[in-house]
């Protein structure tokens, strides 16, 4: 028991050393998606912006568990923070939003979605991003060919992308959507998309039977690229596009692989924007704009340089 007590004391002291109280404004950044590269960039940049403003930042991740995020929101609401930033679909965390708003804590969305209980949401325009990559595909195929789509319906910002890309493909008479796949997340979206793409390649064994892969974000595009490379079908000229311009996607594009284009959401810009909006709100400004859109840009090999 003595050992147990000692260990417990050490553990608690470690914990106590990490958490220290501060007088400066404290902002919590809450998300179930911290493992996603885009979320990481936003959080890191928000922390940097907050440090410049002299704030203390508390980052809370619940590892894809929405119910746990609601509980953590209720916890921080009791603490009397100055603001909460969420990166999750706000309709799924409404009890947490109510707890925060009831406690008088303003909540801001960071690439989450519009909601009446949010002061405002800062995001990229999902419709225009999907339109950028979908039209890139249509142009590269000269308006004809079979396209495989990787989509994700449960998360509204990503669902939007799929809807607009589908509309563009369906509006192009000679383009056929050969399959629309929701990759399994069991071992991360890369593995799920890779497995799915391997199956698609086996189902379309003839060279030239698939012209393009449109992915709603970069991970499945990278998974599809791996499947195409391992199947030895890189020379068929299959055009792959993604969205988000993660580091891995940029590398794949820069080396001249089948992964040709992605869209760079300005995550750093979004983080800075939401920090500025929090600052002006705390300063008494009245924010009426529901969504603040930060522009995003298409990234191809030419943009990355060599």
């Amino acid at each position, binding site marked *: *028991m003595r050992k*147990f007590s000692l260990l417990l004391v050490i553990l608690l002291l470690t914990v*106590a050393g990490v958490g220290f109280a501060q007088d400066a404004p404290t902002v919590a950044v809450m998300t179930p998606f911290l493992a996603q590269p885009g979320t990481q960039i936003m959080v890191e940049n928000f922390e940097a912006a907050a440090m410049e403003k002299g704030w203390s930042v*508390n980052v809370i991740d619940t590892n894809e568990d929405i119910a746990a995020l609601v509980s953590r929101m*209720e916890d921080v609401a*009791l603490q009397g923070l100055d603001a909460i930033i969420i990166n999750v679909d706000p309709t799924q965390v409404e009890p947490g939003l109510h707890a925060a708003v009831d406690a008088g804590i303003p909540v801001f969305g960071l690439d989450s979605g519009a909601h009446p209980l949010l002061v405002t949401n800062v995001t990229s325009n999902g419709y225009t991003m999907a339109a950028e990559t979908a039209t890139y595909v249509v142009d590269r195929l000269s308006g004809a060919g079979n396209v495989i789509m990787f989509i994700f319906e449960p998360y509204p910002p990503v669902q939007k992308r799929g809807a607009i890309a589908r509309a563009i493909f369906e509006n192009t008479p000679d383009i056929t959507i050969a399959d629309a796949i929701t990759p399994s997340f069991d071992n991360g979206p890369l593995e799920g998309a890779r497995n799915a793409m391997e199956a698609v390649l086996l189902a379309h064994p003839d060279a030239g039977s698939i012209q393009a892969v449109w992915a709603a974000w970069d991970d499945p595009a990278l998974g599809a690229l791996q499947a195409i490379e391992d199947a030895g079908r890189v020379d068929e000229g299959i055009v792959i596009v993604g969205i988000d311009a993660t580091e891995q996607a940029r590398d794949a594009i820069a080396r001249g692989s089948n992964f040709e284009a992605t869209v760079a959401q300005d995550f750093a810009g979004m983080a800075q924007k939401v920090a500025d909006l929090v600052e002006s709100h705390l300063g008494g400004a009245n924010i009426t704009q529901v969504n603040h859109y930060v522009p995003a840009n298409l990234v191809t090999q030419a943009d990355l340089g060599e």
Partner: protein
Amino acid sequence: MKDRESTGPARAAFSPERFLRRYGTLVGFILIVVFFWTQRPGTFMTIPNWVNITRQMSILGVVAFTMTIVMVTGDFDLSIGAMASLVGIVAGTTFQNDGAVGTAVALSLLAGVAGGLLNGVLVAYIGISAFVATLGTLTVFRGLALYISGGASIYGRVIPAEFSSFGRGAIPLGKIGATDLALPNLTILAILALILVFIILNYTIVGRRLYAIGGNMEAARFGGIRINRLRLLSFVISGLGAAVAGLMLFSRLSTAHPTQGEGLMLQAIAAVFLGMTLSEESQPNVGGTLIGVLILGVLANGLTQMQIDTYIQQISTGAIIILAVTLSSLSGQQRHYGRWLRRLLRRLPREGD
């Protein structure tokens, strides 16, 4: 909480070491509470926060309490999280098809019972190990939830207001000082589940027989216990618990997502294991499970209030579970196990059929 053992044969005189071994987890829990109290005096040890914790832990509580019954017989039910998710989708789909709240709840509970029956038949009658069988049904339930929902969440206006307001509602109990005291509906459900499981395990013949099966299945069989039927029953109760938890989760979030209950399974098992350290015979017991659930809840709540990095939170929680179970196994509680079983079996004939 464990009246049975206290009537046991001559006990050693009180020794502090023995006390701490036996109640180490409870002492640890109290230390954790005191620690957070000193660190966050203004917000942690307050009525709103404890109401908050009980509401947050109510859903895990229901599955952990019913999971205790399965674990008493020496089995596991890995499918409860997937079942909770599936039940949300069943209820949500019922709402989408203009079903009433009563219909949705009835269909959901039916789904839970059906899932439990499937698990029970696979384990008790076909003889597949509980681990493999419920891993299989976990995947089936998850697939069904994703298939029925098309992978999308069900939320918004299709969900009747009386359904979603239940999960957020509370029964007012008056005022303490300036604070309104109200008992959340979800907490009440968890308390009811706790009482029910406590009575089943401690005050019924069924409960004693479940413990006998977990103690030594062959001996229990020779003792005339209908093992298959009772193991089936334990899975049905677990399925029903998962269904209730799934409805609670759906009502609390007003959203049914095809994977939203999956975090429950590991946490429920962790809570039961923590609770087992509080039994002299290292047996699952629902009082201990309650302490296990509270430890997990208080850690998550307190560490969040202290602004501890969430990954450090996961490490601390895991470390505390390992620490508690290690301590309990070092103390050699398993040796009491044989004596516990003999005593139990001696009792059975007296209870009669």
